[in-house]
């Protein structure tokens, strides 16, 4: 079982990112569950959501304690949350950032999702949309196939800029 924890702030689409990722994994023929952790959420508060991907049905409902991959959609949460907590040895990190390096020995990928969203003018209520471009980055890392990433985005969003943003993130991901 591959376990992914997504860190974001309320309103940035972390929950939708988890759902898109699960849907894409499902379209790849895997079993997948996406579960948001619902706390006392409000816009701007740090939130987490979880995705599990496996070749067999998933019976676990509790939160992910030891993820294989941590995705950080807003690096400012790293000031208040230890995003690496419980990350497995050999576990990976994906940051929405313009530059970076490996965090505490964990292989870290960097992609400027915010810049990509702004370039595509993917902005809702003043916030850049991060949850569709991040699927492109996850496809590049190999969590899901690029085809399923596109299908998943198209199933949930009709605006083609979402797919273009995911393609850009696929191209621009830096290891």
């Amino acid at each position, binding site marked *: 079982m591959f376990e992914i924890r997504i860190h974001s702030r309320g309103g940035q689409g972390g929950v939708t990112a*988890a*759902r898109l990722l*699960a*849907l894409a994994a*499902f379209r790849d023929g895997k*079993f*997948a*569950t*996406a*579960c*948001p952790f*619902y706390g006392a959420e409000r816009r701007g508060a740090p939130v987490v959501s979880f995705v599990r991907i496996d070749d067999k049905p*998933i*019976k*676990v*409902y*509790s*939160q992910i*304690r030891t993820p294989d991959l941590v995705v950080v959609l807003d690096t400012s949460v790293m000031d208040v949350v230890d995003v690496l907590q419980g990350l497995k040895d050999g576990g990976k990190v994906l940051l929405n950032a313009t530059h970076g390096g490996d965090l505490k020995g964990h292989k870290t990928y960097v992609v400027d999702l915010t810049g990509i969203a702004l370039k595509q003018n993917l902005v809702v209520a003043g916030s850049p949309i991060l949850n569709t471009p991040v699927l492109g980055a996850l496809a590049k890392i190999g969590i899901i196939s690029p085809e399923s990433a596109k299908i998943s985005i198209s199933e949930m969003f009709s605006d083609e800029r979402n797919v273009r943003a995911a393609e850009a993130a696929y191209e621009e991901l830096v290891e």
Partner: protein
Amino acid sequence: MLTIATGNKAVAAAVRQANPAVIAAYPITPQTEIVEQMAEYVTAGELKSRYIPVESEHSAMAACIGASITGVRTFTATSSHGLLYMHEMINWAAGARLPIVMANVNRALGPGWNVWAEHTDAFQERDTGWLQVFVSTVQEAYDATLMAFRIAEHNDVLLPVMVNLDGFTLSHIMQSLETVNPGDFIPPLHLPHAIDPAHPAGYGTLTGPDDYFKFRWDIERSMRDSVKVIRETEQDFADRFGRSYGMTEEYRCEDADVVVIAMGTLGKEAEVAIDLLRKEGIRAGSMRIRWLRPFPTLDLAGRDVVVIDRDYSFGFGGILAQSLKAKHRCEPYSVIAGLGGQEVTYDDIAGFIRDRKPGEEYWFGVKA
């Protein structure tokens, strides 16, 4: 069709296919997604139901009762405080023998104000004459909702059915869902005591002790008969669509020296704990109780029993543990866990089983 959906959306998909004539509902977290989806189906013309937006849950059930007595299929959904606000009408629905189907998204009762999973809300309705089923996956939420209509409306039952799913843990998780073409799986409803202007009759009039007593016995007789109807319905569902669950879902129980008994999503996560313990050489099994009413008969003879209650009766004990004690004369290790959405992992469940103390009660995560 194979897709991916939340527990709430799975319930809504099944209700759409059951095609109720009337849906009356009031939104409440974490159930709101169900009634929103039903309203969308109706607005889009995909469902011809009359959708009655009411001002309270009490009115939601009252509207369902009024519609159901005319002999049409009805549905509502609620949770927690909404369920308790319905309490008077919930009793009425069963007493009037109306096959209403309701989804209840299990949520703790305030205060402290809490929107997360707990079963005490549904357990407080256990003596009302409703059948109650608890589900553990998105697929089961869909399947059980389809089956609920057929079971409720069966001539040998004619009692309302409540489909329970854990708040957020199941209502908001996304899992795969295979929808089916129900065909004639749910036959048309024929309510023998439906209002008929050609044959006027009194409803809800004063009833003397002799007749009242007969009505109560008749509810119990139908509750007992419902076991057979549930089994037949499950069998037909399995024959048509290839999935079955049973009154109680057993996992690796054949040679088990110890069984853990739980409900809802905890009962499914318990299966992971069983796999862990089996690797350690502990012969453990899991029994996930699905039907709270009618309450199942379990094979517990000669086994240690660990019961996880996501509910409590103050001054008495875990309701499931006490029910099993009364019915099976066992001395379970009674674990109270998961109240108000408390996180309980498969590791925790394995720990309950390893460290069991038969006859004792243990509040998980609370220092005595």
